[in-house]
């Protein structure tokens, strides 16, 4: 059967659910908006100029990417060793560990974030405990801060990193470790010079997933960041649903999409060039 015919249902779904809304958003971003007239079907770059000339938006974009970067770095630091230990485990302990690693993904985002709110709040578990122990006199603010968002996001993003790195580790020939050992390398040297470089493709793909998901995440920043700490996704939401300025919201969404794409492609290029041997 014709391969195009076979993939038609998937293509149709992809077209209707992704391509069409994306094109409509793109077109929408060129329209204008008036408080009394609503959306006007003009065509111009004024929404983009508004965003790109306003410090307010630069701050939001800067914060979003800083959060996404911090989450990515934390996931690399936590996820890579986790994947490494996962790889060395026995089969049945490993399957239990995989389940634990995937745990955060099994819980609904709202429930998970509410859990973090209980932990992070000024009267939350962490602050109360620290104050009861006498380590703090006044609560340490974690709710409604970028730091809180980073912690809650890293929690749910680590599984993606672990799975990506683990996949890369499984492709390694275990004999390379024995070879390095026979040549006189210590465990730390083997990890640094043999295992880690071979795991780079996994770390790269994991960080691409984590960065893009974090930069565009909505539920976690809106619950933990609240009204005060805005990120791009919550700003778009506000433009659409509070200000009702759909064209401006669409423009911000398009800018986020392009910015994330540019960052990902550049990062990919840089790492691939650095580790040419592993990627060929």
């Amino acid at each position, binding site marked *: 059967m014709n391969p195009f015919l076979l993939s038609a249902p998937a293509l149709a779904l992809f077209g209707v659910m992704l391509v069409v809304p994306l094109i409509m958003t793109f077109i929408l971003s060129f329209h204008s908006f008036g408080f009394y007239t609503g959306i006007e079907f003009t065509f111009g770059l004024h929404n983009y100029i508004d965003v790109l000339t306003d410090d307010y938006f630069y701050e939001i974009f800067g914060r979003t990417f800083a959060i996404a970067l911090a989450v990515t770095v934390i996931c690399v630091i936590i996820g890579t060793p986790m994947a490494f230990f996962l790889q060395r485990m026995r089969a049945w302990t490993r399957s239990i560990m995989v389940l634990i690693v995937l745990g955060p993904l099994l819980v609904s985002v709202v429930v998970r974030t509410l859990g973090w709110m209980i932990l992070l709040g000024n009267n939350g578990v962490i602050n109360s405990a620290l104050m009861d122990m006498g380590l703090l006199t006044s609560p340490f603010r974690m709710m409604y801060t970028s730091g809180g968002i980073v912690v809650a996001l890293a929690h749910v993003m680590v599984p993606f990193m672990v799975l990506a790195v683990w996949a890369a580790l499984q492709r390694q020939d275990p*004999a*390379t470790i024995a070879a*390095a050992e*026979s*040549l006189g390398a210590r465990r730390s*040297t083997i990890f640094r010079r043999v295992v880690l*470089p071979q795991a780079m493709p996994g770390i790269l793909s994991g960080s691409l997933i984590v960065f893009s998901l974090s930069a565009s995440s909505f539920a976690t920043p809106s619950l933990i960041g609240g009204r005060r700490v805005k990120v791009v996704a919550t700003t778009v939401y506000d433009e659409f649903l509070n200000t009702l300025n759909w064209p401006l919201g669409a423009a911000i969404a398009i800018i986020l999409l392009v910015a994330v794409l540019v960052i990902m492609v550049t990062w990919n290029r840089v790492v691939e060039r650095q580790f040419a041997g*592993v990627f060929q």
Partner: protein
Amino acid sequence: MAYLELDHLSKAFGPFQAVADFSLDVARGEFVSLLGPSGCGKTTTLQMIAGFEEPTSGTIRLNGRDLSGVAARDRGLGIVFQTYALFPHMTVAENVGFGLDMRKVRGKERKRRIAAALELVHLSHLAGRHPRQLSGGQRQRVALARALVIEPELLLLDEPLSNLDAKLREEMQLELRRIQQEAGVTTLLVTHDQNEAMALSDRIAVMHAGTLVQEAAPFEAYERPTTAFASAFLGKSNAIHGRYEGPEFVTKDGVRLAAPAPAADGAGAAGDVMLALRPERILFVEEADAVVSGKVVERVFLGDQWLFKVATPVGELLVTRRNGGHAEPEPGATVHLAWAADHLRVLAPEAAA
């Protein structure tokens, strides 16, 4: 005193005895093969020498030094792995240089030794390539250069040619022998390929079920196997079962055959024995000269030779004949076979095998 001494080496994995009371001496500069089918304990033996497995009992001494308790990284052995285990993210030169880095060999000396090692394996022109850009044979050479550059006291080869195709494997056999002799390094090869073992080594140690079956030079091992297993594993062999009645050998179907006298104390002194006969020692002759006659059951053409399976009163016999460019008997034809009695080897029949 031998250079490498394996002294009553044993390794058990739970109830499974992988290697049992294995002793072997290797002289300096010698090339010895551990030959046996998979699961015979040869790889476990190599792993114990390399330091990746701890022997259950017994000792390994290299150049007078007891290796028990010495970590793999401190043994200073060169190992070529079955998968080559090259570092995919490093160039050929970096792969070869890795062992030197670990020994803190730097600068000019490091460069000189990498160049010399690549020269030895004829790969100087590929120093800047990554392993993925190399053919199987080239990767094999890189693995060799990487193992030899550290000037190891002992070179261990773990089925190094098994991943190569047949033609390349033959080329690499010659090449491997040349490199080993040029480097003058004592070498232990682990293989299940009898041709490889015979072509490469000074001595073959045939292993079966964790024990040493026979230890001899290749020609000696092929010509005078001491057990039924060694006889069948090294090349093809026909087995004729029977017993001695006085000086005469009688097969289990009652055919009398001229055979060498059994050793007074060895196999055949009493009870059932087995005669081993190489297929290439059996000749097609005229009826009058025949030892046995039989019918061709199967015939396979192998290019340089023919392989026949002939049903005879002493059992089915394999016969190989050089392809001399003549027509050979078809299946179903009656052929007359003969062999010189001194080509028969008297062996104890394999227990329950």
